[in-house]
């Protein structure tokens, strides 16, 4: 099913939009999502880090994501 992934900072600029429609397979993991995004947008792989937030919380690589979650890509933060 398709999901909308929130994009910020350099990830937003690489992908060219603040939201990306993306197909998320049933029972896929954060790692699988990252792999598929990086293979479609290779510049994402050049970042110092790239995390995924699921429902506003940092997710671990093995966490499951589903299309009903609020998903966001978190490139290296630089607040302050």
């Amino acid at each position: 099913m398709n999901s909308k992934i929130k994009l910020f900072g350099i990830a937003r600029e690489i992908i060219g939009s603040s939201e990306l429609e993306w197909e998320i397979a049933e029972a896929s993991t954060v790692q699988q999502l990252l792999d598929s995004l990086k293979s479609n947008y290779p510049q994402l792989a050049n970042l110092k880090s790239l995390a995924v937030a699921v429902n506003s919380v940092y997710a671990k690589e093995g966490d499951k994501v589903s299309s009903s979650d609020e998903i966001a890509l978190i490139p290296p933060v630089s607040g302050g």
Partner: protein
Amino acid sequence: MMFKIVDQPLNPQEVIDLVAGEEAGAIDVFIGTVRGSTQTKKVLRLEYEAYDAMAIREMEMLAEKVKGIWPVHKIAIYHRKGVLQVGDIAVVLAVSTPHRKEAFEACQYTIDRLKERVPIWKKEVFEDGEEWVAAHP
């Protein structure tokens, strides 16, 4: 509201007032401002963006963690987003404690962790280009 992301100029006094109180003998306040140069390049402006809901949530979790380490009375953090000019305040963080040593320690720890975890991003705009801070190895 002890934690805020705002797109208007920050007022340190407002943040200080949030943490003051009779329990607090010491308040340490950290103010981060936009410097006019970075290493060798002249900075024209900074552009900040935030994942607001998550940033607030991370700040709240960070404050809880800090309160578990030091006897903190109150913590408040205001972070600005949008376009900032040189000299503008990007963040104001205030911590009140009974004694000064823990105010310094808790404040420094909080700003260090904020910079590592809270989903806020800044782009430096120079005369001849721009760069998302810390994005690449």
